[in-house]
């Protein structure tokens, strides 16, 4: 049943031009950054040789690409998550899902899985960039892997938050603005807070992602992402259940 809902979400996503435009624009941005860094690396290569322990191609070229990817996803996710539930209410299609013999959990997980499939495509497309460099040399596979895992967890966190905000309103635009606002706050929280103890900066999603970006799979960051994802999925399920109870 989860797969049925996920398949429907993917279908609706890809029958509109939004998804295609999205993939094209995002790929353009990534490739631009990638080529820019590649240029810089080739220029610097002779100087890098002189350093005792020089940074490799992966660190100079690929790490910045993934850093940019995280910020692009932060900006882009609200546009994709906004319609997940808000539009079901706006178009009065929610009764169809509610009347069907499936649980609210299946509805929420199906929608989550559907959009995650789309993000898997994006992450796959980003991954193609470093793999193209295998033609000319060796890359740091571990670093690419940790970046990929990080980006996946980050995207899942964005989607679960966006899904929840989308369930709070019947206007997709409000859901988009709300999600973007919260994601931005979670981004800058470590810059703004200086003396608030250790708690507040730890809420920053991108700060946790930085660990992965540097090539370190930090288990506390993994746990943080997992908790974040599960919390918002549970909140969404409770919200949909509540709509049945409170009308």
């Amino acid at each position, binding site marked *: 049943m989860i797969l049925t809902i996920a398949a429907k979400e993917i279908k609706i996503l890809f029958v509109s031009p939004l998804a295609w435009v999205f993939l094209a624009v995002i790929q353009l941005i990534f490739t631009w950054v990638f080529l820019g860094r590649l240029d810089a690396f080739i220029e610097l290569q002779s100087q890098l040789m002189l350093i005792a322990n020089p940074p490799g191609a992966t660190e100079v070229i690929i790490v910045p690409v993934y850093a940019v990817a995280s910020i692009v996803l932060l900006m882009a996710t609200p546009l994709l998550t906004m319609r997940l539930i808000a539009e079901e209410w706006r178009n009065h299609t929610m*009764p*169809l899902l509610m009347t069907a013999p499936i649980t609210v959990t299946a509805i929420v997980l199906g929608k989550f899985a559907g959009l995650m499939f789309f993000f898997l495509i994006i992450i796959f497309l980003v991954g193609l960039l470093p793999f193209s460099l295998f033609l000319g040399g060796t890359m740091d596979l571990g670093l690419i892997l940790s970046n990929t895992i990080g980006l996946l967890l980050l995207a899942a966190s964005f989607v679960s938050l966006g899904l929840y905000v989308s369930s709070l309103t019947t206007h997709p635009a409000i859901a988009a603005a709300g999600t973007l606002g919260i994601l931005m706050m979670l981004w800058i929280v470590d810059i703004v807070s200086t003396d608030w103890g250790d708690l507040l900066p730890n809420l920053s999603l991108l700060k946790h992602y930085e660990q992965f970006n540097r090539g370190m799979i930090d288990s506390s960051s993994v746990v943080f992402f997992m908790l974040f994802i599960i919390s918002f999925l549970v909140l969404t399920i409770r919200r949909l259940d509540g709509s049945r109870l409170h009308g």
Partner: protein
Amino acid sequence: MNEFTCTLIAHDLSRQFGQNMAVQGIEIELKQGEVLGLLGPNGAGKSTTMQMLSGNLAPTRGSIQICGIDLLDHPEKAKQHIGYLPEIPPLYKELTVDEYLCFVARLHGVQSSQILDALAHVKDRCGLSQVGKKLIGILSKGFQQRVGIAQAIIHQPKVIILDEPSVGLDPNQIREIRELIRELGKTASIILSTHILSEVETICDRVQILNKGGVVYSAALSDLKQKSINLEQIFEQFTLKKELVGDY
């Protein structure tokens, strides 16, 4: 009336929105192969009742049994037997009719080997065979309504709940839909709400009139015909009465 013949039993059904009692103590019993018409002025609680019967809204009080299964305790099991057409048909306008109906069939747990059969059958019944490849968004209101009915019956439910099925249709389409409902009523139980009294007279076996959240009148259509009572008079009598009393 035992549980074997009753496909739907709602007992003491009530729903409160804040301070406002939208539906109060409604009793509905539906036998297999029976068509029940719910009548009532706007705001009488028809749609709220139907939302509760279809599992879209939790009742504040009362119980609902579908084919002997409690809807509130075992929602997934009970909902297998329900087909529901809300007031506004729940259509994904960016999908084609075929894509949409396939999705609905899968959603209701129709076996994948039987989906194509179910699809062909339901399209034939609802007169959608010509428009299977068209986007729902470009169909006329009448066709969209038919797609709405098709999604409610594709899994051959035992209880079909139709909220104003003939609204927005032209007279020919209304006649077709009435024929369809009468045919469906041979095998399944149907509850439908409407504002058109003649619709009740032509397709329903029984009528319940709702006013201000409660059932004020309930009778079998055959009885009414026997006693040659006019439904319109009864409707006026039971839905206007209280206000008239208040005026005098």
